């Protein structure tokens, strides 16, 4: 029921694969040089405030309650999410679901202590009661609410032409039918194709004791294609998916063709695939989805909550050389339409691009406002929460490595016996010990510098800092993965993205059979 100090990353695949700031009031945060206060329309006419049925007086009242017993920082997080899912099995679309999740999270921070409460009832009485509960952590003199509430301008990283609320189910059904027929037509051995479609739109309004009001409209969509094939009485199944903060028009025929083909190819390849040899081997990580390496081996260990508590293996490594000089690793909120994109984080801080490792040297942790204040640095815009039911934590957004100087061909040629990792289902890491894993669903065996056979179902385990030092080559073909990844930490799931150029790690422990 409770998980240990580990983080995991999952890619939702179909059945058969079990998974997959308060800007404190000390920070005068004016975003992107936008005019504030006097130039703003009254908050009551703000579309987000209208959506939630709150006005300036109520927000001020709640903030007053949050600060009533003292606070280093405090915030009110209002959220409304509408999600839709549709599934298609055995050729018909016969199940759909919708959900509305609405509520408010209220938080009071004293140093590194947090009082938190939430309510699904947005009435004045409920909000004030929850604020009083959150303030229970404090026992000092009241902090006055802000004189002026400054509304940040809305960001444009994932502005979509047509909101999901305006896309009816009758528009979506033909897209599901199209991709299902496409997948079925690709191989005569296909027995089952199931499709899962999801779209959602989230509205948030964050009000801080520092007087900042930030709002964001966050669309998200995802399409899975699951395939089962039966060849001479043997069955194999696999899947592919695409995801992002996109709108309906993103689902072009070309994109659907690609995801259908990926799902079928990945399934059919399993019939010929074997398990790799067991033990320590060189591993080539294919461009794109292999960004899972960064997420597990590096990213979590650089989340600043683990470092301020000194429980991360990276706790004493800022400024130190941790990788070869061609390695630059970034965690960015600014990649347009990616799952990890954020105009504003869940503490109201502007989403930013954070260089974690520059030319092999560890530069920065990933901060929420508690850790930014602890280290005396600017927030990195990575304070995130699963929903209004949780307080924020430092979290990754879109984590990727910049292109390197080598080529994929020279990597393959350099490997006597090893593997290429191509598709993944999930990964996990122990923050302090530094051991991380990721699960390879499809890959290739390399023997004497040549690709010789497909491989499948193999867990890779390594140690973060060791693996970074063993990155011996990186190619120029950096790209972000198109699949939908969800990161779990302390019981909170958030959407993330990742990317990598083709990379060679000289040795990792490969879960295989027969050395």
């Amino acid at each position: 029921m409770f998980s240990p100090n580990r983080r995991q990353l999952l890619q939702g695949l179909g059945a058969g694969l079990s998974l997959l700031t308060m800007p404190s009031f000390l920070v005068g945060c004016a975003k992107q040089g936008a005019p504030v206060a006097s130039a703003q329309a009254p908050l009551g006419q703000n579309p987000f405030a209208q959506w939630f049925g709150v006005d300036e007086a109520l927000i001020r009242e709640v903030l007053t309650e949050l600060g009533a017993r003292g606070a280093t920082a405090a915030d009110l997080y209002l959220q409304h999410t509408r999600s839709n899912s549709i599934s298609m099995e055995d050729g018909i679309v016969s199940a759909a679901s919708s959900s509305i999740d609405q509520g408010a999270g209220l938080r009071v921070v004293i140093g590194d202590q947090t009082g938190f409460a939430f309510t699904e009832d947005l009435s004045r009485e409920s909000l004030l009661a929850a604020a009083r509960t959150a303030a229970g952590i404090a026992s000092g003199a009241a902090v006055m609410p802000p004189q002026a509430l400054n509304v940040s301008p809305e960001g444009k990283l994932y502005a979509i032409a047509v909101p999901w609320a305006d896309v009816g189910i009758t528009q979506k059904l033909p897209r599901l039918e199209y991709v299902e027929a496409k997948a079925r037509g690709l191989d005569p051995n296909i027995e089952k194709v199931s499709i899962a479609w999801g779209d959602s739109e989230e509205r948030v309004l964050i009000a801080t004791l520092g007087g900042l009001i930030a709002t964001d409209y966050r669309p998200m969509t995802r399409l899975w294609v699951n395939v089962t094939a039966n060849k001479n009485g043997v069955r194999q199944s696999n899947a592919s998916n695409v995801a992002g903060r996109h709108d309906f028009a993103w689902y072009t025929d070309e994109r659907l063709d690609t995801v259908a083909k990926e799902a079928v190819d990945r399934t059919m390849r399993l019939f010929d695939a074997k398990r790799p040899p067991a033990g320590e081997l060189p591993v080539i990580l294919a461009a794109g989805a292999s960004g899972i390496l960064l997420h597990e081996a590096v990213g979590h260990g650089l989340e600043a909550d683990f470092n301020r508590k000194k429980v991360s293996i990276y706790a004493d490594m800022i400024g130190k050389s941790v990788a070869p000089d061609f390695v630059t690793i970034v965690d960015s909120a600014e990649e347009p339409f990616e799952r990890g994109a954020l105009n504003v984080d869940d503490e109201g801080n502007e989403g930013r691009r954070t260089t974690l490792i520059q030319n092999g040297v560890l530069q920065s942790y990933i901060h929420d406002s508690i850790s930014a204040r602890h280290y005396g640095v600017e927030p990195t815009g990575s304070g995130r929460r699963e929903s209004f039911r949780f307080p924020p934590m430092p979290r990754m957004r879109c984590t990727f490595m910049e292109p390197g100087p080598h080529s994929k061909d020279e990597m393959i040629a350099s490997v006597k016996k090893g593997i290429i990792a191509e598709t993944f289902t999930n990964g996990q890491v122990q923050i302090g010990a530094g051991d991380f894993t990721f699960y390879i669903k499809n890959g290739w065996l390399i023997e004497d510098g040549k690709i010789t056979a497909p491989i499948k179902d193999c867990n890779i385990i390594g140690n973060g800092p060791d693996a970074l030092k063993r990155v011996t080559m990186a190619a120029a073909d950096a790209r972000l993965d198109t699949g939908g990844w969800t990161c779990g930490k302390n019981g909170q799931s958030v959407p993330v993205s990742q990317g990598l150029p083709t990379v060679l790690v000289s040795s990792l422990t490969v879960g295989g059979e027969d050395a």
Partner: protein
Amino acid sequence: MREELLKAAQEAVEISKSAGAQDAWAWASRSRSVEYSYRDGSLETVQESTSRGLSVQLYVDGRYSSQSTTDLRPDRLKAFIAEAVAMTRALEVDPFRKIPDSALFAGRAADTLDLVDSTVSTINHDRRLEIVQALDAATHGHEKVISATSGVNHSHDVSAGASSNGFTGSQESTSFWFGAEVTVQDAGDKRPEGYHWVGGRHVGGLPDVSAVGKEALDRTVTRMGSAKGPTQKATMIVENRAAGRILGMLMSTANARSIQQGRSFFQGKVGAELVSKKLSITDNPLLPRGLASRLYDGEGIAAKAMPVIEAGVVKNLYVDTYYGGKTGMAPTSGGASNRVVTPGQGDLAALMKAINNGVLVTEWLGGNADGTTGDFSLGVAGFEVKNGKLGAPIGEMNITGNLVTLFKGLTSLGGDVYPYGGILTPSLVFEGVQFSGA
């Protein structure tokens, strides 16, 4: 509260029918929870909340959809359901989308599950603080401790359901958990971590708080000096606390849905011997104080114990109404409750003595399994077993194989059933397991 929620569910069914659904099902729930965490001498987070929600399943003109919302204002709820009914009409007709047969509601057991401890609601701030402080003291009893976070949490959940074909029911439960996680400084930059949590439906009957903190500390300290073991085939003991995960993987496709979708190695295996004769697993929803106990499942099907695997033979599968209809299997229940593994004898020390040499796995790290074929590969950490005794800590290793083959090689089970999970299993011993390491 139970009556209030039942009324809300019944009203939602009525609204759905007025909006045009021929059949409907609704669940209403409310949950109160309090959680403290305490780190290195001070309170870190205090969380308190009361949560509520409503979900509705609609059967409209041979079509089906499910809905959920936390916006329970009457006008909003009516509009939400009306919109959902209209949306459902746009789906395709599916003859198998039928409301669960009311005959399955019959025979509900008397409520002797004992899932509610009224003293949970009396736990106050001082008591919570006392628990986390005792844990904090116990977890700091070693010079190498860098940081330890202790926690306590308790909750009270109530839910009620109603259907247009005569189902009504309400269930209530409490839970109370506490424990800690510890990080210690090892050689170099390594900071191994460990944890121990205990909990149950009742406050009573749990181990002493300080002993739990001490256990978390000991489990961490013993990880120090962990090194990669050799690549080899070896006998593996999986400690009771870790055994639930591998059993969960084995059983993850023991259901009609996976079989109907061609994604299960249980296909065609009902009545056949699939795994070692040593393995028997019963799904028992009626276990008093069980963490996964219930009187009825999500379709209202009256709960009863069901053997799933008996002496290695597959006896029953998890079958819900929809996939039961599609496969021609009679519905049992779509979801697992308490999965009870028939234990063997002896504690961990006895099992180690019996195998003499091998590997004791105490934790998993990542990994996965393919439910269609059973192929798996999992990260592991634990200890060497040498001459019948606990040896050096090992980690950064994988085990790889096939779940069916692995469980065919299940040679014995301990008598040490782990009580803090929905899978009640002792430690398990497997032979011929492929380890990948140095």
